[in-house]
């Protein structure tokens, strides 16, 4: 417990100190890299909420990540071109305001998650993995062939959206926004993991019969968890789109779902900070190994393999001990 606390603090500290250092030596790219890690971490935290706490192994979280991205892209695109998103039955205009975009991304992702969840939760285990994948794949194929927003080519939003009082094009300021969101999301997930809901959700994952016998309905717990999970990942998608100032169907691809899942597993399933550690390590590896050789994926694979084989429970399992602390 103490160890885990220390690790959490160190992680957050490094994540803050590194970009500040990069800023001081004028390496904006490194700030962007850290921002990228943070955005992926948020996506991972979202997935972890369903996967780690609720045992809902979703291979379709790209659906929410992509939706968040497309919310940003579509709204900003219409704001850029001064065309309404929708003219009927009510007029909706585009926007370039980050907070508005986030709220819409969160709301729509939660809504989509409720829809997908309500259907998918009839199944369980591997069937659940595959049915969530199916939903994401459909969105993927849909966006690829949907010409309005660029199809497979995606859509560039040349200027980052605005946040009151900040210059979002400045890497360090955009980083600060993402970092603050990370902290808020972490705080929420941390509280939720210790809350009545967290306890019930965890019990439901371990034994549905048990949770029913104490008078609760697993389906409602799962659906709520899935919606929250989708909302967080959707928010990450919106941030990711703003980070790249670009959206494309790749955000919906199963590789994206897989990558988000890798962050979670790598960091430690069911640990509040696990996905943060996972995303940071993954980005770090990608960044440092990429230059080594054309065949750097081999090294990456070998390292990941080493982590699974020798570190039970991911990085957090390795450093902070195997057992997940629940209280």
């Amino acid at each position, binding site marked *: 417990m103490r160890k885990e606390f220390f690790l959490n603090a160190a992680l957050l500290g490094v994540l803050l100190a590194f970009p500040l250092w990069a800023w001081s030596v004028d390496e904006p790219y490194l700030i962007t890299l850290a921002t990228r890690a943070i955005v992926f971490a948020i996506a991972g935290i979202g997935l972890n909420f369903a*996967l780690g706490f609720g045992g809902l*192994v979703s291979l379709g979280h790209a659906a929410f990540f992509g939706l968040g991205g497309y919310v940003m892209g579509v709204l900003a695109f219409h704001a850029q071109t001064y065309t309404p998103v929708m003219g009927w039955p009510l007029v909706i205009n585009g926007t370039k305001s980050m907070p508005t975009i986030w709220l819409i991304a969160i709301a729509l992702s939660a809504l989509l998650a409720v829809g997908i969840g309500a*259907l998918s939760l*009839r*199944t*369980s285990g*591997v*069937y659940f993995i*595959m*049915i969530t*994948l*199916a*939903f994401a*794949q*459909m969105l993927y*194929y*849909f966006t*690829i*062939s*949907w*010409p309005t927003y660029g199809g497979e080519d995606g859509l560039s939003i040349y200027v980052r959206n605005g946040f009151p009082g900040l210059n979002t094009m400045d890497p360090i300021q955009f980083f600060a926004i993402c970092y603050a969101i990370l902290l808020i999301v972490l705080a929420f997930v941390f509280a939720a993991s210790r809350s009545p809901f967290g306890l019930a959700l965890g019990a439901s994952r371990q034994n549905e019969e048990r949770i029913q016998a104490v008078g609760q309905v697993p389906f409602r717990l799962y659906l709520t968890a899935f919606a929250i999970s989708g909302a967080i990942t959707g928010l990450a998608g919106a941030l990711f789109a703003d980070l790249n100032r670009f959206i494309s169907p790749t955000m919906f691809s*199963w590789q994206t779902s*897989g990558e988000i*899942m*890798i962050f*979670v*597993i*790598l960091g430690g*399933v069911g640990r509040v900070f696990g996905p943060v550690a996972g995303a940071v390590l993954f980005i770090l590896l990608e960044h440092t190994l990429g230059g080594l050789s054309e*065949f*750097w*994926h*081999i090294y*990456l*694979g*070998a*390292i*990941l*393999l080493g*982590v*699974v*084989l020798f570190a*039970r429970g991911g990085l957090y399992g390795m450093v902070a001990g195997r057992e997940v602390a629940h209280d």
Partner: protein
Amino acid sequence: MSLILFIEQALNGLQYGVMLFLMAAGLTLVFGVMGLINLAHGSLYMIGAFAAAAVAGATGSFLLALVASLVCAAFAGVLVEFFVIRRLYDRDHLDQVLATFALILIFSEGTRWIFGSFPLFLDKPDWLSGTVMLPFGIEYSLYRLWIILVGLLVAAGLFWMIGRTRIGIRIRAGENDREMIAALGVNISLLYTFVFALGAALAGLAGALIGAIQSVQVGMGEPVLILAFVVIVIGGIGSIKGALVGAILVGLTDTLGRSFLPSFFGLFLEPSSAMSIGASLSSMSIYLLMIGVLLFRPKGLFGGI
């Protein structure tokens, strides 16, 4: 649309289904029966295709190439099982996901390192080339007919092994409770190595057979992997019969969707949008099928408990 074309497309769908079954057969075995999520199944498929291409290139013999695909993939399977998978049986499914994802990276780039970045040449042998005339004047590829035959043979063999032999019973028992089956005196480790190797060999064989009419290149395994998962989930995990039925359903849906959806939309939309709407819908069709099946049968068509 003529009836003949419809029959021909249905036949194509069936054939595509059997091809999908070949890809999925090894996966059902390993996944359904051993309860192991093996994302590297696609890599074993790729290894089979590359081994076949290399041997066919060197010897010119297609049969030798098939043997090579079986042997190499099985061997890779044994290595993987022994060094990696074996340590993961009593772990979470998610650890298996991460480990086998890592294996994909290693295998893909390893293959590219050995064979280079360009697709390889692998062709069917002369004695399987050309077409035959079927009733109704349908001209059909001999090789594709041959694949149907091999696929059905594999299905029958697996069906018999899993359902009727003691090895099959033991494998299934091991999936349920590894510790207990060992405590009853069954060498489950060895058995699992065998099953994994068999699954790998089947993947490799599929890679070689299908590689002969598709492209043999790095990354060929991943799309197949998804399809194969779709197939076995529709059919019900652990059921060979389910995999076969699921594969044929997917094959038919995909093929018929591709060939007739655009003209269907053409009935009431202008041609170019009918074309693209039809095409997008048909690329989603198998996922729609899967969702539909799972909504009514949450454990797949032939899924057990």
